[in-house]
């Protein structure tokens, strides 16, 4: 691989698979995932940290991938919505719950919600509605009015064996 002076090498493990890429440093992690790795499940809304659509897990923690840059991923592990379910082709219990409880309409915001909720439920059991609303307060949805999403989080809290 020939590295141009304005490029940086990134070695990153995404959904369990390690890849090596040359990137322009100003490439956002979101664009790298979408355009470089063709993982278009990560969505971009505001592109400046406000809406939560681009949320992914970086070394197990939720982060905004639109205000993170591709070189910063070097040596890290990333989980996107494509890697959420442990069984390829099946839905994760959180995804099942969103489907059952009308936690989505157009689905644009959903990948960001799923990863945010994944982190929240990994750490919490039996949260009440206020705690759930606080946990998802950094993610915006223009369709559902949030009731379905809150119900989905409550359902996943019960169904997800963890």
């Amino acid at each position, binding site marked *: 691989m020939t590295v141009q002076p304005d490029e940086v090498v990134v070695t990153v493990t995404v959904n369990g698979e390690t890849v090596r890429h040359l990137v322009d440093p100003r490439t956002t992690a979101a664009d790298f995932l979408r355009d470089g790795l063709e993982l278009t499940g990560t969505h971009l809304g505001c592109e400046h940290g406000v809406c939560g659509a681009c949320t992914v897990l970086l070394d197990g923690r*939720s*982060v905004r991938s639109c205000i*993170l*840059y591709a070189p*910063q991923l070097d040596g890290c592990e990333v989980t996107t919505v494509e890697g959420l379910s442990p069984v390829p082709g099946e839905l994760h219990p959180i995804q099942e719950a969103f489907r059952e409880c009308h936690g989505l309409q157009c689905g644009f915001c959903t990948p960001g919600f799923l990863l945010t909720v994944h*982190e*929240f439920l990994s750490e919490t059991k039996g949260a009440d509605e206020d705690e759930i*609303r606080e946990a998802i*307060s*950094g993610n915006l949805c223009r369709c559902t009015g949030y009731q379905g999403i809150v119900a989905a989080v409550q359902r996943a809290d019960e169904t997800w064996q963890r």
Partner: protein
Amino acid sequence: MKPAPFGYLAPRSVDETLELMASHGDDAKVIAGGQSLGPLLNLRLATPAMVIDLNRILELAGISAHDGDGLTIGAMTRQHDAETSPAVAAACPLLAEALPYVAHRTIRNRGTIGGSLAHSDPAAELPAVVTAVRAEMVIRSRSGERTIPAEEFFLGYFTAALEPDELLVAVRVPAVPARTTSAWQEFATRSGDYAIVGVAAVIGLDGAGVVDRASIVCSGIADVPRQLSTAQSALVGQEPTSAVIAAAVAAQHTDPPADLVGSSSYRRHLVGVLAQRALEAATERQEGNDDRPTG
């Protein structure tokens, strides 16, 4: 949306970073959590030629407690890690109380203590908190280290007392004196938004239950964290009853700026309400605490 092109360097040590900062000067920006700089880069409001990433410098992250003598918090300590740290809860409860109001969990996973302070946004929680607890900023450049009180660190809107070659390496929080308690109050239109006004209150009582120290510091009403010095002086020497607090707060003149989320008079109203609540909450925490420094 794409930032303007920039070069990228990821030093592993503070010394290496200071060399890079000295050689790139004004052309470079350090990136900590990127939760404020990232939006500025994406919107091309910041167009540095070089971005120096602090995220690989392990020595900059972490919290050390000094055996009843306060805390040192490394600049790259993530806001979420400080929020959940038992050492912070014990030695700087005001910081622990205010941190959950900083943005959202996902932002705090990445955002750092040092980044929020260096960014010097007068609407932010942490600058008001470190001013109220009289913390010190530890600053390094190639030519050495200096320490300045928080009060002198915030110079104006988005302007901290940092030269282009200087790195904020840590914030030092003094031990909470005996019979000293604190509280944070803020009002924001939505959870996680910047507050329209926030108030940090610290109250110290002497053995007779009379105020011997009061710090009241507001976010959102000036270009820097603003101390309510008239109200502070009015409280000292008094028993902090609700009426005394109300009189002290009423004596304070403020002249907040207006913007889309709040007029000047609305902000002034919020200062009164929130300062009263914060001071009463801090006073209530004194009860049953007698000599125990619970902060």
